[in-house]
Every structure is written in C-alpha cells, then in structure tokens.
C-alpha cells in the first residue's frame, strides 16, 4: 500500500501540512481582521472609551451578567446533559432537538419570543410574582441564559457520551445510589467538560446583543452591556469609538479563554 511521504527532518506528512494550513488560514484571517480594525482606530478613541462612565458601566454589567448566566447555564446543563446521555425515556430524541432551538433561532427572534411570552397571561403572572425581566437588567441574564444554555448542554453531553457508563453501573453494585455515583464517579470525570461548557457559555453570553435589544432595550447605564455600547456608538456615527469597544471585548474574551486553557491544560498532541 502506498504511504504518504514524510518530511525527513520534521516527520510531517502532506496531510499534516493540509491540517496546519487550514488552521493557519482561519486563525490568520481572524488576526488580519482584527489588525484592520485596529488600524482604523487610534489611541485617542481608546482613551475616550476608558474614560467614559457609560462604557465602564457597560463593562461591569457585561462581566456580571455573562458570568451569572454562564454559571446558571452550567447548573442546568449538567443534569440536562445527564438526562439526554444516560436516561432512556419516551420523547428523548424530541427533547434533544428542542434543546437546540436557541442555537438555530436568530437571536433577535429569541428576544421577540421572550417579549411576547411576557405579554401572555402566564408571563404577566410571572412578572406580577415579582420576577420582572422586560426592560430590566434581569432580562439580560434571562436572554443570555436561554441563548447559551444549549452550548453548555452540548459540550457537557459530548463529554458524558465519552464516559463509559459501565464505570457508573459497577459503582452502583458497590453500594452507592445513582445520586452518589454521579457525585463520586461521574462528576470528577466530567470536570473538563463542565469547565469547557462554562467557558463557551460565558464567551457567547459576553458578546450577545440581539435578544437583549428586543427584551431589555438599550438604556444607557441601566440595560447597557458592551455589545449595546457598540450599537449605540454606531447609531450616532462614532465608528472609532465603537471599534475601540469591540477591541476591548476581544481583548477581554481572549484573555479569559487563554487563562482557561492555561488553567485546565490544553491536551498535548499524542503523535506527530
């Protein structure tokens, strides 16, 4: 059988070159995009952005809401992923598909759905019970949570699917109930998946804008997150300022993702 030629010095095959090329093309393209944005703005715009009380408020609110909604998403994702991966029940396939609806739905439509829901008798009852979301900062967390939860569920479920259920079954024969088995056996093996799901959820929530614009509006220093700030700056023609905020968001997200990868350890390649 013919085998691909390896480079004598590096040991790389043409397939390795193809894989590396695809990665370089995509990552390189993104870097070029960011550099072009950077070249369009200047230090003055950055200074103005950092001095702006509105942007500082939006930054604080963005970090708080995205962290809270990512945490909530993980809390819901772990049991939901467990149910989808480990339990057999009627309608499991349908439930699996329903979970993905927020991923396929345009974000603006999700916001519209939420707004409509809070105009129905059930939605009004929720608001009358004291849980107010429409045009309120809590609505930001709700919109972010609904959008990012499917990403967390998918990530946790993929990890769970890779764990041999026989390990859990044997643990049950060793005297533990299913809840204790989950805590003592499954959860430690799920740690990386939970962390990855949380980070993906946080990153998507941090950059989210569409559903919030519909559900909570774009009120300065009330429901303004960084994505809203970009929209507001663009709407008044301050393009350089909008780009500076965008780059600030990229910097924060990049820092958070790199810190996560450094803390959890990106798996090293097994074979070159």
């Amino acid at each position, binding site marked *: 059988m013919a085998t691909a030629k390896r480079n004598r010095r590096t040991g790389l095959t043409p397939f390795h070159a193809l894989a590396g090329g695809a990665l370089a093309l995509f990552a390189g393209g993104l870097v070029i995009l960011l550099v072009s944005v950077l070249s369009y703005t200047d230090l003055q715009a950055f200074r103005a952005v950092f001095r702006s009380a509105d942007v500082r408020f939006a930054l604080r609110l963005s970090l708080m809401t995205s962290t809270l909604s990512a945490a909530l998403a993980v809390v819901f994702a772990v049991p939901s992923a467990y149910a989808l991966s480990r339990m057999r029940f009627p309608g499991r396939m349908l439930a699996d598909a329903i979970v993905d609806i927020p991923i396929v739905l345009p974000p603006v439509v999700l916001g519209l759905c939420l707004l409509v829901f809070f105009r129905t008798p059930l939605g009004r009852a929720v608001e009358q019970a004291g849980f107010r979301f429409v045009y309120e900062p809590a609505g930001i967390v709700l919109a972010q949570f609904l959008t990012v939860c499917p990403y967390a569920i998918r990530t946790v479920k993929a990890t769970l699917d890779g764990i*041999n259920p*026989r*390990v859990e*079954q*044997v*643990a*049950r*024969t*060793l*005297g*533990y*109930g299913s809840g*204790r088995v989950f805590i003592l*056996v499954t959860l*430690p*093996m799920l740690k990386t998946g939970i962390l990855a799901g949380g980070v993906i959820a946080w990153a998507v929530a941090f950059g989210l804008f569409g559903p919030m614009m519909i559900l909570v509006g774009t009120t300065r220093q009330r429901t303004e997150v960084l994505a809203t700030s970009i929209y507001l700056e663009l709407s008044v023609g301050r393009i350089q300022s909008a780009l500076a905020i965008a780059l600030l968001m990229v910097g924060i997200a990049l820092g958070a993702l790199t810190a996560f990868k450094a803390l959890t350890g990106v798996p090293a390649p097994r074979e070159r």
Partner: protein
Amino acid sequence: MLCVESISLRYPRFALREATFSVSPDDYFILYGPTGSGKTVILELIAGLRIPDSGSIRINGRDVTQSDPAHRRIGYVPQDLALIPFLSVRRNIGFGLRSPAFRPDTSGRSLTATVRARVDEMLELLGIVHLADRKPEALSGGEKQRVALGRALAIRPDALLLDEPLSAVDEETGNALMRELKRLQRALRVPTVHICHRFTEMTFLATRVATIREGAIRSVGTPDEVFSPPPVVRAVEAQRPPRPLPQEENSLPPHRLKNDFL
C-alpha cells in the same frame, strides 16, 4: 447460594427465555456459549442492572429480583473491567467499602484504618501490593483484571459475577489468572458465575456449567455430564478399534457435546 429461576427478558431483537440455575458456595459455575447468546444479559440481571420481565433471583434466600444494584451484595467484574480512571488501585479496591451498604465493622478503629486493612488484605491476596498507588492507565491487562477482581471481592460479596475476565489478556497471563480464580473461589467459598466461550477455560475452571444458545439455557450440570457423549455413542466407540488421531485433531476438545451445542 444464588438461585436464578425462570428469568425472562424480551427486547425487540433478543429474548432471554426461562433461564434457571443455581450456584452454591462451592460452585465455580460457568455460563458457556457463543457471542450474542445472552450470557452477559444474565449477569446484568443478577447484578440488578436490568430487571427481568418474569422470574426471580434469590441470593442466600433473599429475593433480590426488583432490588437496587446497591443492595444486592454482588461482586461484579464486567468484561471491560470499568475501573474508575482517576482513582489509584488502592482507592479503586476500597471504593465499595466506603459505601453505606458495605461499610465494614470498624471495631473501635477509624473507618479509614479499617478500609486500609481490608484493601491491604486484598492487595496481598492478589499479589498486587506493589501496584497500590498506581492509576489504572499505568497497569497492564492482567494487572487491571486483578484490581477489578480485588474491588469486587473487597466488599465480601454474596455472589461473584465475572464477565469474560480472561478475554483481553495474553495466554500466559490468562493461565495464571485462571489458577488464581480457582484458588480464590475455593478459599473464599463465594458462589461464582463466570462467562466464557473458550472450551479449555471452561474445563479448567468449572465445577458446574450451563450451556446457552440464542437466549435459552440448553443444559446444566458438571462438565462431564454436559459434554460427555451419550451412553449409546460410548458403547459404539468402545467396540471400535483405537485409531490414532492426526496431529491437528489432538488439540481438539476430547468430547463432543451431548446436546449438539457447537
């Protein structure tokens, strides 16, 4: 004593029909049959990982047919061993001893010290003291087998279930493990059900054997009872002059199956 009485389980593409056998503390009981015949399903039913449609399972007189796996007092070694990957050998073997169901009598000592003593006993018994602090990923196939066996035996189970425990090891390790399994079963006197589909493995280990095919148990008895030829064949063969077997045939099993099993 483990008693399985008329257990049945029906799936769209497979059915286990009326399986019945009993295993005493002196029995090394082999479930012998081809792949897909329902051997593993029987073990899973005994372990409580599946619930039968009908029939009953009793362990030392307790009816455990509907019981949770946690309360059956079964030592189970699945085919893939299913060691907990993030725990050391010592923690894997002691895992069941920290559960409410199998917590040992501490007699005034701390639980940690009692568990440690029981685990040391197991490590000694299986000859794996030197592996105590290793993780499963750093063990060979034979070593993993011993750890899984130690984990199942540490809880002092009322019955031991072994699902093809020698399938993933080389011949030399397999032979050593077979001798060890036989020794352990005799020493501990725990009713043991062992799945295999290798004739030599079955003849070496079994005190009693059940042959199974297409979800039904075909015969139960000692290996001699199940695999020796029927009297009429023996009578005919006794009158025939001895004929030396060709070299290749000498390696074949000495008997044909009484019930045309293979």
